[in-house]
């Protein structure tokens, strides 16, 4: 089966290389049939990689430890779904997943555009196949997941070797979110190859109008959503599984996922200006290239070993290839952009600096600066090593100090943006527009000051959250009121129909709302509390309003791990509200590596987060750490709202006509009612 899997990968490489050259040849010779054969090769390549993936999953499920990847990342007692998830538990398997997702995306693009954009498609296919071929070459020749274990005997001969049991999956990865987190993140990273391919094709064919933007908008949004959800799932995993009480540690690999998300967000905003005004064309192409490259950069960081990270696979063989690939892509893209500058001229000019177009420009600037700050902080240890010969650490204190002011400025713009009109805004209308959101925001600020809050950033954050919240509410209110007046619909129905009629605008506002909610959660960090105590049954510890009373300790055994479990009763105001059972697990495989299983009592106001850190050195007491983390719940809730908002903007256009049809009927009814009343 391992030979079959490797053969399928080799076949896929041949097909993708054929697809690359045939599509270019077809475009140059203007031979439609050659281009079609290239497209079929792309689909066949996808099918071949699917077979290869199925082969590896089979090897994992059947615990064939003669295959190095299976032996390194699973063991016999591992539950089946974790065995399958071990596909991306080690470097070579995760590369196969990457290749598979790339191939699937390429296949979907080819199928979607069989009869469209025929001038562009050969180049789109060429870029996609170039990208796929690069990863296939790495996967086949430098990190092949089908490599078999061999034993070298004293006489120098080599024999196949199959150990009795595998080393097991990293225990930290044995958590439900980890089953879906990497694939979702990969969907986010890899998806940006599609807008990139269309951008390059548009540059080559000099079709730099709205076509490539409109074609890839949906792809960009879906990809951006996957990346966002992947980031949040990673945060949830860190929160529940790592046991340090936080969800974002500014780890280099976390940072490398955040960077394309930030530039992707910038692109989603600036693209609106190009669609509406025909402006920022160079900027948009550049943003797509940067976003795609940042996705590759994330893989480079994870797989090059250049920076220490809990996520890194640290296989230094691959780093240099990624570096060359990124330089090649950057150089080629910049050459094309410079060469096509005359075709990238703005169709219009700004009517005024005080306009929504300018707000978008500032929004893009801040997002790019945020991305730069993250990149700078992530790479600074490497720079420092080059310049001073010392590899320093750049951790959360740096990122928080630099990121918080930029984040707050972005939050401010989230609120201000919709207050600006397209083209031109007069100072008077701005003053009127600011009045309503500013009043409640200032009230919140004063209330927080009076209640004793003195943290500057927290005050600013909560004030801005209220400001943006009212701005969004105001937008919905205005639109709905007009609709109620025009159609006679009740308020709720009018709001739903308003949103459906202009999904992109109001879906966008829902996403903005989600950002506000997440900021509320992030601001709660400033008020985190933590206490630790070595306890025996009967002991109590106090944190905030809660009293934790230890009642029991038990050891246990499961096929996969041994565990120690502490039982704690939680009292609030003298009343028992919950029993919590934090655990410490020791995995039998994985060299006895331990994990903490956090006990969590999560409410919108605060999370009570209890960790059983271990048994004291004398073996008589149990180390308990309790965290009180205010408002964390809003981070997860905000993420859910973000998904809803993005899905609204992604709703198919057919719904528009449906909504319009409904509106027409309602309008007719309203008119009729009006006539009868008269």
């Amino acid at each position: 089966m391992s030979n079959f899997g490797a053969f399928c990968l080799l076949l896929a490489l041949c097909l993708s290389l054929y697809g690359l050259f045939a599509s270019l040849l077809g475009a140059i010779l203007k031979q439609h049939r050659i281009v079609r054969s290239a497209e079929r090769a792309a689909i066949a390549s996808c099918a071949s990689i699917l077979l290869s993936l199925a082969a590896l999953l089979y090897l994992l499920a059947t615990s064939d430890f003669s295959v190095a990847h299976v032996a390194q990342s699973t063991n016999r007692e591992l539950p089946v779904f974790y065995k399958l998830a071990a596909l991306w538990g080690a470097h070579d398997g995760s590369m196969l997943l990457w290749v598979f997702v790339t191939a699937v995306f390429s296949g979907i693009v080819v199928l979607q555009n069989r009869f469209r954009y025929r001038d562009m498609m050969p180049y789109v296919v060429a870029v996609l196949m170039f990208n796929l071929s690069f990863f296939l070459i790495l996967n086949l020749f430098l990190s092949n997941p089908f490599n078999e274990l061999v034993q070298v005997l004293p006489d120098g001969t080599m024999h196949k070797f199959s150990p009795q049991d595998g080393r097991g999956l990293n225990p930290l990865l044995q958590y439900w979110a980890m089953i879906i987190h990497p694939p979702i993140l990969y969907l986010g990273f890899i998806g940006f190859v599609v807008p990139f391919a269309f951008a390059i094709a548009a540059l080559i064919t000099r079709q730099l109008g709205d076509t490539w933007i409109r074609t890839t908008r949906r792809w960009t949004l879906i990809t951006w959503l996957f990346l966002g959800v992947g980031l949040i799932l990673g945060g949830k995993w860190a929160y529940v599984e790592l046991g340090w009480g936080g969800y974002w540690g500014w780890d280099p690999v976390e940072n490398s996922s955040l960077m394309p998300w930030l530039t992707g967000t910038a692109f989603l905003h600036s693209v609106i200006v190009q669609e509406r005004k025909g402006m920022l064309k160079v900027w948009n192409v550049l943003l797509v290239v940067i976003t795609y490259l940042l996705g590759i950069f994330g893989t480079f960081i994870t797989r090059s070993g250049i920076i220490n990270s809990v996520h890194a696979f640290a296989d230094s063989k691959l780093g240099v290839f990624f570096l060359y690939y990124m330089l090649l892509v950057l150089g080629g893209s910049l050459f094309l952009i410079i060469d096509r500058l005359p075709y990238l001229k703005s169709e219009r000019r700004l009517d005024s600096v005080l306009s929504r177009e300018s707000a978008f420009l500032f929004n893009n600037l801040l997002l790019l600066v945020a991305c730069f700050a993250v990149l700078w902080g992530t790479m600074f240890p490497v720079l420092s090593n080059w310049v001073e010969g010392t590899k320093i650490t750049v951790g959360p204190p740096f990122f928080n100090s630099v990121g918080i002011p930029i984040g707050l400025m972005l939050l401010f713009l989230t609120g201000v943006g919709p207050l600006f009109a397209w083209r031109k805004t007069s100072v008077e209308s701005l003053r009127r527009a600011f009045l309503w959101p500013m009043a409640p925001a200032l009230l919140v600020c004063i209330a927080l000051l009076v209640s004793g809050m003195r943290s500057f950033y927290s005050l600013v954050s909560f004030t801005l959250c209220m400001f943006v919240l009212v701005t969004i509410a105001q937008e919905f209110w205005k639109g709905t009121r007009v609709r109620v007046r025009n159609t006679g619909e009740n308020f709720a129905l009018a709001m739903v129909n308003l949103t459906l009629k202009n999904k992109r605008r109001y879906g966008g506002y829902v996403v903005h709302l989600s950002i506000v909610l997440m900021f509320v959660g992030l601001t709660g960090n400033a008020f985190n509390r933590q206490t630790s105590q070595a306890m025996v049954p009967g002991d109590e510890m106090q944190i905030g309003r809660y009293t934790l009373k230890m009642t029991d300790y038990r050891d246990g055994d499961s096929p996969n791990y041994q565990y120690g479990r502490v039982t704690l009763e939680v009292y609030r105001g003298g009343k028992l509200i919950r029993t919590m059972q934090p655990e410490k697990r020791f995995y039998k495989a994985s060299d006895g590596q331990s994990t903490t299983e956090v006990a969590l009592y999560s409410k919108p106001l605060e999370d009570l987060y209890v960790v059983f850190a271990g048994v004291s050195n004398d073996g008589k007491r149990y180390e308990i750490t309790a965290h009180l983390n205010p408002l964390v719940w809003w981070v997860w809730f905000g993420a859910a709202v973000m998904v809803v908002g993005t899905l609204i903007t992604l709703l198919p256009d057919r719904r528009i006509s449906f909504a319009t049809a409904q509106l027409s009927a309602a309008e007719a009814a309203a008119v009729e009612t009006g006539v009868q009343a008269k």
Partner: protein
Amino acid sequence: MNSKVRGRRERRGLPGFSGGLLLLCFWAAVAPAQAPRDISREYKEACDRLICQCGCNEQLSVCAMQNCSSATPMRAEIRERLQKGDMVDPIVDSFVTRFGKKVLSAPTTKGFDLSAWIMPFVILCLGLVVVVWIAVRMARPAGAAVEQTPPAVDPRVEEELKEFEKESGC
């Protein structure tokens, strides 16, 4: 005249000041014996500023490895020194002397490290200048006719804008 008055006032103030100082010394001597100093905030600050040296590359406050060979003694030392009355800065400095700058969780504000802190804001300022320049340069000169826009695109955008404005009631 004025200096005399001031002199008197100063002389009058001196016994009060000495008394206060004495009281403060008395409190400083007695207070620690009465109640142990609450070091939780300083302890967290010190642990946040230092990196565990076991190879996990996490802050001391984050490393969750049980009986970690690096974090456990470092934390114990911090706690002990804080309880003895040491301040956070000297404690952190002593770790830097022992392990070098790599033990810090953030760059210092000296030498090349300073560039880590200022570069994002330099880029922000440069970006602001560029954006303002672009906005001003791209802005239509005052009094220029709005009809400069390509007629093929204009009606469509106009229509959409009107629809937008109508909906939102702007």
